[in-house]
């Protein structure tokens, strides 16, 4: 497999030498946050939207990705005239803390041992730590109130954490395809992903860089497994059905056991191998762990409504009918928690057969929902 590491790309970033105290108590310094912005910040600095990316996303939201050469992960949603309209809003997207696209993460050199990356010694981080790192950038940009925070999946967790931790700073919040806590089933999936990485002989106890190796097989298997959870049976059937083709990499004849492969297998292998070119295994472990820890009610006797008591944020929760990773039942738990806090909540379930990934794909009802919610909120916030 291709073993190029993307470290040589210089990502636009802000550096905070004083760092930040993590929830685990560790003082992480310095802290670097890589970010991209789209659109123009208004003179009143009141039109900023933070878009939070999901587990394997990054800050390249609406432009060609410098590493993969592919369009930004939400370029169909964010841009001039699009639902998140950059003619109107100033959009900020930041690589999460613990990530591997320019923000401080396990691949960075640790300050106390020059030349040595953090690796598995990178301190455990939480969704709230990610959000607090993002706030450093928002503060540095001179923005005292965000018009909106929007994100799907793990991005939705960050949206909720933004609204819970900095309630006065978030006028509108759009948590999409997410949950008030990471479910046991989802922790289980993450654990299988992690075990796949650990089981790779190239893992080398997490110090794979010393051998000039990366646990590409393990990371690819992790991605393949996770990718299944992002789709739905209907979507897989529609895209691949039971179609087979000759395996170009198998030297044995078509009559051998694996001489032919199903198209769905070929697709997953492609997903796995392209993923390892852009993602660091230790980052994957750090971020999946942060998701597992996520529980809005953890500090409140298990009541996820308590962080939102007295909130003035306008919420719009979105789920998708065929999403079985973050199903509507979990979105409804979130909606009811916000009801208990008497928050202003919209809650829409979009009819889609595309599974969890629907929020990244072409769903006209979803586009209308995003556009309408933001326009309505802008009217209430009295901004252009």
């Amino acid at each position, binding site marked *: 497999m291709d073993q190029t590491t993307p470290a040589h790309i210089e990502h636009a970033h802000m550096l905070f030498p004083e760092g930040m105290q993590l929830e685990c108590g560790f003082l992480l310094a310095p802290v670097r946050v890589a970010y991209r912005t789209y659109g123009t910040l208004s003179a009143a600095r009141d039109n900023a939207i933070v878009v939070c990316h999901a587990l394997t996303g990054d800050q390249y939201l609406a432009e060609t990705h410098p590493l993969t050469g592919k369009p930004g992960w939400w370029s169909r949603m964010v841009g001039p005239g699009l639902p998140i309209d950059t003619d109107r809003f100033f959009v900020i997207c930041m690589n999460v803390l613990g990530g591997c696209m320019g923000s401080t993460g396990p691949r960075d050199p640790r300050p106390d041992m020059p030349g040595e990356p953090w690796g598995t010694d990178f301190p455990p981080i939480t969704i709230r730590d990610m959000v607090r790192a993002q706030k450093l950038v928002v503060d540095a940009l001179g923005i005292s109130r965000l018009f909106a925070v929007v994100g799907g999946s793990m991005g939705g967790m960050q949206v909720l954490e933004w609204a819970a931790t900095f309630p006065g700073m978030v006028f509108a919040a759009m948590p999409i395809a997410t949950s008030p806590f990471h479910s046991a089933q989802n922790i289980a999936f993450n654990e299988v992903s992690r075990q796949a990485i650990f089981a790779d002989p190239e893992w080398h106890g997490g110090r794979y860089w010393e051998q000039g190796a990366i646990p590409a097989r393990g990371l690819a298997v992790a991605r393949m497994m996770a990718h299944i959870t992002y789709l739905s049976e209907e979507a897989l059937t529609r895209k691949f059905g039971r179609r087979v083709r000759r395996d170009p990499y198998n030297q044995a004849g078509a009559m051998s056991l694996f001489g032919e492969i199903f198209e769905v297998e070929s697709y997953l292998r492609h997903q796995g191998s392209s993923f390892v070119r852009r993602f660091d295994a230790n980052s994957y472990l750090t971020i999946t762990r942060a998701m597992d820890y996520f529980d809005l009610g953890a500090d409140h006797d298990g009541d996820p409504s308590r962080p939102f008591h007295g909130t003035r944020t306008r919420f*719009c929760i979105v789920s998708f009918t065929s999403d079985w990773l973050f199903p509507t039942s979990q979105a409804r738990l979130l909606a009811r928690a916000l009801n208990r806090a008497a928050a*202003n909540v*919209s809650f829409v379930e979009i009819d889609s057969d595309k599974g969890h990934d629907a929020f990244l794909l072409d769903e006209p009802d979803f586009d209308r929902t995003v556009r309408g919610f933001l326009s309505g909120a802008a009217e209430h916030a009295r901004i252009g």
Partner: protein
Amino acid sequence: MRLDQRLIADMIRPGTRVLDIGSGDGALLDYLFRTRGCDARGIEIDMREVTRSVAHGLPVMHGDADHDLAHYPDEAFDYVVLQRTLQAVERPREVLRQMLRIGRHAIVSFPNFGHWQLRLKLLTSGRMPMTAVWHTPWYQTPNIHPCTILDFLMLCREEGYVVEQWMAVDEDGERAPWRRSIRLANLFGEQALFLLRRRGR
């Protein structure tokens, strides 16, 4: 907006917090926000209506009167509105209790099953009456708890609700002239509209 919705809006003081259960296309919410400066939110069971409302910038959540009111705190709203839906909920008495728990006032409209045409049709044909208001056959109707204006008044008395205002309305939402006599309203009113609060407040 229907005329009876205008009558509902007239019962609501400007700048208050309103929950509209069964907000439909969101017309009342939009009106209350734009003309009354209300913090008006909706609950709607039909997902297409929810999506359409949110796409118009209105705060509406998917849910229904029977299952979603229990999650709001006491007196979260100044008014809780239930339009033409009471007869279709699973537990009307419980829904009213929840409305007057989470709201300081409840505004309830419902089709009057005491209307003379219904009485006459049942008497003469011996079959379930069908009218312009009650237009679905018995085996298909979502209206599982029809009541008359008098029935509703009795329930309010039992539950200790104060009727602050009431009126009978015809199907098009025009205010009917039977304002004084409940018995006449019960005979000639097609739709009833009540503004309630709990006793002792």
